[in-house]
């Protein structure tokens, strides 16, 4: 490269002269000193305490530090990992969890049933304000630990819970405990794979129910890697292999979780070889990714689901025909190809293909691009002249919302505008208050691989992410019947019936299923990512 060296020298000279001028600099870290360790890019985790770490980065780091009770096989069925067995009683209400013997925490403490009970009690206790606390809501006693605020946002404070222990948890012996649910649930084992169900050692607590000051920065787990030094906030988390790990042993000796503020920045480092795995390549970089990375640029399915919700409470969108017409006005394939460059898959169902019970193209012709029929249906049923799609700008949605609007404009001959809100919370509040914000951009990533984890939160009347206010009592009933069905198969039947109602009613427009879009350096191989957007740390290896 001509002209390269003089510049570099000039820059270096300037740096040196500044150094001499007394403007001192630090040392750069040498992360790649050990050749069998790798660097994986993440964002700053919000937390590393398992019950508080519900963000992608936090749970990804925890996957190296902890060994989960269960994991999933390729059919998304739960398989025991740290658990020897997990068995329900006949009613699917009391579950007995037996642990594999011989496991220890990184500080040498043996892993016992009590460690799980302590950690779960801490997570479920309302005043501890753990973001993953809601995972414990199926367990008996959760309600007593989370009393409702008598006047919601009003001045009255919620009463202090009478107990800080889940009554549904009972220790049988050092390696066995039982979990009693507040209602039968045949698929409870699938829920247990999430990172909030990790155990905590005695050393985590300074007193019963109180996490020791500074424990989170020097977290101790039961997994194949242990923390090296401290969590260096906004910089890196370094973990190294545990020497005599009893479970499955990874092929690498350590990981530097390098913290990035921006994915485009991380991509720059991936291309320059400063980071070995980037778990999410931003769409702006996609068109160059094949050229930059070749076969080291990969995609695999994950649980993400993009959709648009209708404000069904507004009369102009109350007719299913109008909703179907708008859905048919959208060319999903074109947006997937042109905006997402094939990194997302057109969605024609209401649950993700990664869960058992998914049926391809269940939405039928209502999700097929058909501008002529769309316009006919729309005009016949008196669809509104103006359509607005509200989205949050902090999630990079502008490009596809604008493109979707352009398609709607072209297909239906009505005006369509994308309306940005600065943050998702604003969008959510306005939707909940039934402000006239039009169609709402929404998305979902599952907590556990069950149809119910889509149908419940997204479409049921009290669903935690049903921000658009659709309500159907038949749907709610079928959903509940499914959860209490005797076997997972029977549950799926009921849930599929519930999904059929969505097909008729079209309360949302399914748009796309997401994929993991990742890349890696020439230093590593066997890089695979799972449905939960996590790198498989047991398979990845360095190229000698």
């Amino acid at each position, binding site marked *: *490269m001509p002209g*390269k060296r003089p*510049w570099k020298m000039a*820059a*270096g000279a*300037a*740096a040196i002269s*500044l*150094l001499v001028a007394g*403007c001192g*600099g*630090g040392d*750069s*870290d040498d992360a790649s000193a050990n050749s069998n360790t790798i660097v994986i890019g993440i964002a700053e985790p*919000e*937390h590393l305490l398992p019950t508080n770490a*519900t*963000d992608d980065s936090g749970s990804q780091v925890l996957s190296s530090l902890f060994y989960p009770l269960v994991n999933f096989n390729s059919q998304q069925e739960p398989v025991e990992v740290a658990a020897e067995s997990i068995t329900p009683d006949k009613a699917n209400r009391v579950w007995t969890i037996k642990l594999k013997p011989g496991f220890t925490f990184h500080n040498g403490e043996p892993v016992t049933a009590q460690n799980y009970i302590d950690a779960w009690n801490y997570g479920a206790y*309302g*005043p*501890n*304000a*753990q*973001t993953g*606390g809601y995972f414990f*809501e199926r367990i008996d006693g959760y309600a007593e630990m*989370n009393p*409702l*605020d008598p006047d*919601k*946002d009003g*001045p009255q*404070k*919620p009463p202090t819970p009478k107990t800080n222990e889940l009554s549904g948890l009972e220790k049988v012996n050092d390696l066995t405990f039982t979990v009693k649910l507040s209602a039968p649930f045949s698929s409870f084992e699938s829920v247990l794979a999430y990172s909030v169900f990790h155990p905590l050692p005695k050393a985590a607590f300074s007193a019963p129910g109180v996490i020791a000051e500074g424990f989170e920065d020097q977290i101790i787990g039961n997994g194949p890697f242990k923390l090296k030094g401290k969590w*260096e*906030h*906004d*910089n*890196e988390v370094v973990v190294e292999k545990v020497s005599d790990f009893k479970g499955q042993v990874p092929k690498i000796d350590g990981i530097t979780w390098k913290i*990035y*503020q*921006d994915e*485009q*920045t*991380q991509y*720059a480092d991936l*291309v*320059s070889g*400063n980071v070995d795995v980037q778990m999410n390549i931003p769409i702006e970089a996609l068109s160059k990714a094949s050229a930059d990375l070749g076969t080291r640029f990969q995609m695999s399915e994950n649980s993400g689901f993009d959709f648009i919700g209708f404000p069904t409470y507004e009369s102009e969108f109350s007719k299913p025909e109008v909703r179907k017409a708008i859905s048919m006005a959208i060319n999903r394939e074109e947006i997937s190809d042109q905006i997402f460059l094939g990194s997302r898959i057109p969605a024609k169902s209401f649950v993700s293909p990664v869960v058992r019970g998914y049926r391809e193209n269940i939405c039928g012709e209502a999700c097929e691009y058909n501008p002529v029929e769309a316009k006919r249906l729309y005009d016949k049923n008196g669809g509104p002249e103006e359509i607005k799609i509200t989205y949050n700008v*902090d999630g990079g949605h502008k490009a596809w919302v604008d493109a979707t609007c352009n398609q709607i404009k072209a297909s239906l001959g009505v005006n369509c505008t994308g309306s940005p809100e600065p*943050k*998702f*919370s604003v969008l*959510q*509040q306005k939707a909940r208050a039934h402000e006239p914000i039009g169609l709402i951009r929404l*998305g*979902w990533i599952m907590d556990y691989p069950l149809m119910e984890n889509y149908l419940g*939160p997204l479409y049921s009347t009290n669903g*935690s*992410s049903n921000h658009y206010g659709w309500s159907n009592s038949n749907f709610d009933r079928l959903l509940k019947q499914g959860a209490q069905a005797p076997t997972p198969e029977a549950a799926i039947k009921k849930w599929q019936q519930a999904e059929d109602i969505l097909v008729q009613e079209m309360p949302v427009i399914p748009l796309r299923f997401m994929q993991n879009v990742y890349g890696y350096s020439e230093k590593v191989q066997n890089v695979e990512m799972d449905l939960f957007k996590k790198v498989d740390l047991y398979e990845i290896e360095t190229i000698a």
Partner: protein
Amino acid sequence: MFRYIVRRLLQMILTFFGATFVVFALMFANQDDPIQALVGEKTASDSLRAALTERYHLDEGFLTQYWYYMKGLLTGDLGKSLTGRDISEMLADAWPVTIRLAILAILIAAAIAVTTGVYAGIRRGGLFDNGTLLMTLLLLAMPIVVLAPLAQLVFAMELRWFPATTTKNATLYELLLPALVLATTVIATQLRVTRTSVVENLRADYVRTARAKGLAPRRVTWVHVLRNSLIPVVTLIGVDLGVLMSGAIVTEEVFNIPGVGFNLARGIRTEDGPLVVGFVSVLVIIFLIVNLAVDLLYAALDPRIRYE
């Protein structure tokens, strides 16, 4: 002079409280739902909401919240961020790298702006003058949200002259590209102002006198004219600190520097009141000291200005 400084220091205390009050009020006005920001796009459960509201006094009125904050501040407790980290610790982590970045950017900007500005001023209307005008305009037309990623793309990813990202412990070489980008946000103004001042001063009586006296032209330019032309430029350097800080928000994100700008951006995004006010408080103090220094510099640069 001494009394002037004492008076200014006293005013500083008032300004400090004024600024923190304004920032606190802005954060309060900007607060939609900080708890939601914590859980991303999932919905915060009622008990999580209740517990965090309680812990951070989120349901209290503005003055009560401000009182809690000030009480903590005066006892040296900056509080905890909404993610539970000590803000004083975060400050200590973030400031050193940003200060190095800002000083480097100011030095680069001032060095380029003053030398180029003086030359452009002397050769007013010439090729060099018009050339620099065009260059500065091109920089002006590029907001930093465009300039920073482009610089990274061209100089780090394509040409590989500089590392694409740096860390908290960045060396000066690693900081050079971000500092250059940051410097461009202020270079245009500094350069134009220097040039204009030089043009003005070249026509001043004292220059004519100096020339008539037979002083060497070079001495007239670089001693007499420059000294008098620096007053507005020095003022700008004080003001530019603010511009640099807002530029730093983007620059730090693009080059992955976990400094003040990054923390501010994160605090604003997650509606983390204590975090933002904590960082701004320190920012304001630095700012006030720099501006006092600038005012004192006037007197040094221009003997006709006297403070009493």
